[in-house]
């Protein structure tokens, strides 16, 4: 409740600070415009053409439908990875043996290119929803796992001692000492996983599926429709920006208020 109130109070100034970001994006638009004028609309559609195509796709429902399909796949894979990664990572962090054992495995998982997983997933799941969901899961799982593992491993022993001398009960040790610390590692990992999932799902769909944003992008490409391709890309980027700046960043500010160093 307190969190919500302070978020609302800081909202206007937070939204206004977005002008800096908008300014950079508009400069990017200018660069896009220049390049498209230099190489012609066939190679790179002009921003306004792409926006017109975007509007068209939005109005005939293609875009929202595809976004929902893709979003569902990304979220399913992500939630799976968040749940399993956090749980297993914490368990591994509590035991030194488990941490020792799992580190090389996670390194392998992290190092494996997502496209390799995609190939395997296509063998196993074909053109079904399983392929993108599995690929998202397997690509984001190690990030979450390692975040949870590190969070659990690095609990500050000094604070632990302090809490012991104050005779904090078990429940308070968990909620006031351990979890806030672990969360400070977990949250960035979750955010990174979210960004990753969105990119992976589009890639997986592009190669494996008949519907969704990725598949539509593939169709636009095969029609040599540069405006539609850019429209799809704009949709992907806009959604990512929206999630990042309107959802995650405000949460991050509140959750990590205690970390912010005075400028």
């Amino acid at each position, binding site marked *: 409740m307190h969190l919500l109130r302070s978020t609302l109070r800081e909202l206007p100034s937070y939204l206004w600070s977005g002008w800096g970001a908008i300014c950079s994006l508009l400069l990017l638009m200018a660069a896009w415009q220049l390049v498209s004028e230099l190489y012609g609309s066939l190679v790179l559609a002009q921003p306004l053409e792409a926006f017109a195509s975007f509007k068209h796709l939005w109005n005939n429902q293609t875009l929202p439908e595809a976004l929902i399909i893709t979003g569902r796949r990304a979220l399913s894979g992500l939630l799976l990875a968040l749940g399993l990664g956090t749980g297993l990572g914490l368990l591994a962090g509590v035991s030194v043996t488990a941490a020792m054992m799992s580190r090389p495995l996670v390194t392998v998982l992290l190092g494996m290119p997502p496209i390799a997983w995609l190939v395997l997933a296509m063998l196993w799941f074909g053109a079904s929803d399983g392929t993108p969901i599995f690929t998202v899961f397997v690509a984001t799982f190690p990030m979450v796992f390692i975040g949870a593992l590190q969070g659990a491993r690095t609990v500050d022993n*000094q604070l632990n001692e*302090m809490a012991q*001398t104050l005779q904090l009960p078990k429940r308070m040790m968990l909620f006031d000492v351990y979890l806030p610390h672990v969360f400070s590692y977990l949250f960035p990992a979750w955010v990174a996983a979210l960004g990753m999932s969105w990119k992976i799902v589009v890639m997986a769909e592009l190669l494996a599926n008949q519907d969704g944003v990725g598949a539509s992008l593939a169709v636009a490409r095969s029609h040599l429709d540069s405006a539609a391709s850019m429209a799809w890309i704009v949709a992907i980027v806009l959604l990512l920006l929206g999630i990042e700046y309107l959802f995650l960043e405000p949460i991050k500010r509140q959750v990590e208020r*205690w970390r912010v160093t005075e400028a």
Partner: protein
Amino acid sequence: MSSSLNRKPVSQKGYLLVENVEHDFVRTQVLQNIGFTVQAGEVYALVGPSGCGKTTLLHLCNGLLDLQDGIIENTFQKTASMFQQPRLLPWKTCLDNMTLGLKAKGWNKKDRNLKGLKLAKLVGLQPSDLEKFPHQLSGGMQSRVALARVLLLEPDLLLLDEPFSALDIGLKTELYQLLLEQQTQQDLAVLMITHDLMEAVRLSDNILLMKSKPGRIAASFKLTRPPSLRDDAWVYQTTAELLQQPIVRESFELPPPTSPSPVDLATREWSYTC
């Protein structure tokens, strides 16, 4: 030799008895045959070079280490500890940090905040500071919060591990002054670690001089003048006198005095036993 240091407890208010305590880390002996007793209202200072096992001894007293050999008997009702660092939870506001101990005892938020606010004024914290997170405060302010956190528990035994050693001399004096006021008012027993002999002379009734490898008590000094009457001149004089003692020099690994003693030992207000 330690048996001569032990006086049997006389007060009913509680005591901390340490007897024949020994401690090993793997194969190194860090504490050997430690014994002393702290009673209510007494201030004991453990003085010695770095690495002589002072912190280990304190951790045995506050239960952060398990006792291996000997007896530690603590009959005080409430024991509280302060560490070298403020050790505040970075994700809690200063007020929440201060009242953490009360929360552990099951006080409700309103009561503990009320009590916290009252004490905050006493240790020099502004109400606006209390809403801040630790990283927004200076080191001195953080130490004040840590001190308040301990005092809120109304302990009768305080174990101090050089809590203000990182602060400048003015702040250090101020905070120790605050502590001493509480000590005399509440009849607190204090066991403090310091490697600063002058600090020990200023604050304590008894100085336990430790020697390292293995850590053991080399001598015990009893200061007879009450802390409230100790002015700077007395503190300098007494520190200098103590530093003339061969046992002190040996324990801090100082070279023997090259010139004859500049201080007159005739007026000393302390006694010592080995």
